[in-house]
């Protein structure tokens, strides 16, 4: 049965429902390099395979591009965010992703990207790559490790901040009858969300085509396809889709704060309704578990 109540804007029905999100821990790093191109390469590599905490260990993405004025070393940079179940769960993710993907990237440096009283080790692992030739420089409250590498020195701050007040799982489900148009609209929504600080959209290009539900008929799995939103089994299951829907794309949003997630969902909704039904989008909904699992609820009607 499809959801039909809600408000229609520019030909797009906004369901009277809510996204259900969860408390998470998050950390952030600033990655700089000689050029923005190489800062982004390092960041993209470090945040790769970081879509879902279930299978990847962390949900990762680039939060924002930083001008040289906004980085500790005055070079171009980006800030990346990593989200996990707990600060402890983030420790190996930080160590491995920074050690394998940023330390190795030409000209890179890595700094704390989140101001917080609670800290995680950042350079505490990669510094040992220096084999005793590494040195530290403490300036104010920050200690920087200088690790000799083949193109000079890899500079990495000793710790990065971590918050346990982050939110993971804000979402929008974009439903339509034209797959290319739907993807184009979803891309526009992701671009709008990218302008909101303190959030990431961790899935490929910010878009998920395989939304999941909790549970499965198979042992050893925790989640499975969200059949209620799968158009090809409409009619054989208790579907949430109307007869005209041929595709659903989801945008998942993780944020350092609940406010940031709400702002991102608002920006995404505005982009979608701004394009309207012209590209084949008929409806926007949101994923939830009946409100029983996640402590953060984002009602779409409050965001339009």
């Amino acid at each position, binding site marked *: 049965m499809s959801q039909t109540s809600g408000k229609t804007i520019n030909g797009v029905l906004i369901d009277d429902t809510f996204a259900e999100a969860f408390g998470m821990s998050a950390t952030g790093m600033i990655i*700089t390099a000689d050029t923005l191109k190489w800062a982004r390469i390092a960041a993209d590599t470090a945040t790769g395979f970081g879509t879902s905490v279930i299978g990847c260990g962390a949900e990762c993405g680039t939060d924002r591009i930083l001008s040289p004025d906004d980085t*500790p*070393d*005055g*070079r171009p940079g980006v800030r990346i965010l990593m989200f996990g179940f707990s600060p402890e769960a983030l420790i190996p993710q930080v160590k491995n992703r920074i050690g394998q993907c940023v330390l190795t990237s030409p000209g890179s*440096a890595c700094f704390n990207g989140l101001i917080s009283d609670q800290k995680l080790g950042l350079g505490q692992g990669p510094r040992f790559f220096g084999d005793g*030739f590494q*040195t*530290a*420089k*403490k*300036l*104010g409250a920050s200690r*920087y490790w*200088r690790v000799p590498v083949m193109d*000079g*020195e890899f*500079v990495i701050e000793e710790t990065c901040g971590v918050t346990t007040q982050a939110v993971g799982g804000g979402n929008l489900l974009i439903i339509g009858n034209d797959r290319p148009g739907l993807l184009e609209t979803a891309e526009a929504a992701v671009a709008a969300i990218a302008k909101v600080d303190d959030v990431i959209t961790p899935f490929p290009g910010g878009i998920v085509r395989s939304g999941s539900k909790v549970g499965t008929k198979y042992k050893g799995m925790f989640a499975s396809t969200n059949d209620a939103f799968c158009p090809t089994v409409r009619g054989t299951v208790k579907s949430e889709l109307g007869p005209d829907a041929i595709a659903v794309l989801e945008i998942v949003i993780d944020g350092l704060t609940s406010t940031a997630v709400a702002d991102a969902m608002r920006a995404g909704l505005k982009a979608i309704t701004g394009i309207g039904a012209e590209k084949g989008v008929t409806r926007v909904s949101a994923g939830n578990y009946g409100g029983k699992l996640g402590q953060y609820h984002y009602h779409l009607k409050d965001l339009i």
Partner: protein
Amino acid sequence: MSGLTLRLKAGAGERLDLTGVTPDKLAGLSTGEIAKLVVGTDKEHMTLGDAFDISGTPGDTLTIEGAGATLDFVGGGMASGKLRVKGSVGAYAGRKMSGGRLEISGNAGTYLASAMTGGIIHLAGNAGDGLGAVLPGERFGMAGGIVVVSGNIGARAGDKMRRGTIIVKGNTGAQSGARMVGGTIWAEGGLGVDPGFMMRRGTLIAPKIERLLPTFVDCGRHDLVITRILSRYLKAELGDLAPAPLPHFVRKLGGDMSTIGRGEILMPA
């Protein structure tokens, strides 16, 4: 402007120990209690009231006027607030300072900033020997904070220094950074003879060196990210007092190779 002012009386000729005569320590005391603090160093037990005319009310700022080289340990133990000294000071100014700002308009004697762990000292004149250096019986010298000297400094600055930054607008004396284990000494004028004698780690920066120890080796000309970080950090902390940023390329001299050789002298290249 709120704050306390101490004006040195003409008759106070003996050496005075001003440890703890700082804005944060005096803030909780009445003017009467402040006047009874013992600062003398002989058997007469001269009090602060005996040595100084006291005016104003205790607050975030303390001003010492008419200061001279008989005042030792000025700013000793300061953790916060601003201490302004009009005139010169004796030995051990800023000793064990952990925060706040100490501004001295004249010169300072020996061992300025010994065992300092935080805060900022700005000395408008010259400093004597042993700036930020270890004292006999102690393990390390300066361990944090920033010292800016607008003039020149004496010998063995930063002896066994562990952390923190010393900026000298003029020249240093002999053996700056001797036995250094960390931190930075940046001499905008130049370094005296034999800088970095027996240094293990740490950074010396200068455009010229009077005489280089043979136990320092040329590591080449490099574009170091850490110098950019250092320059930006100092600009943020010091504003106009910060040294001009280093050029991107510096020549690195590694040493002292008679120890572990993890120290460095950086010269604009």
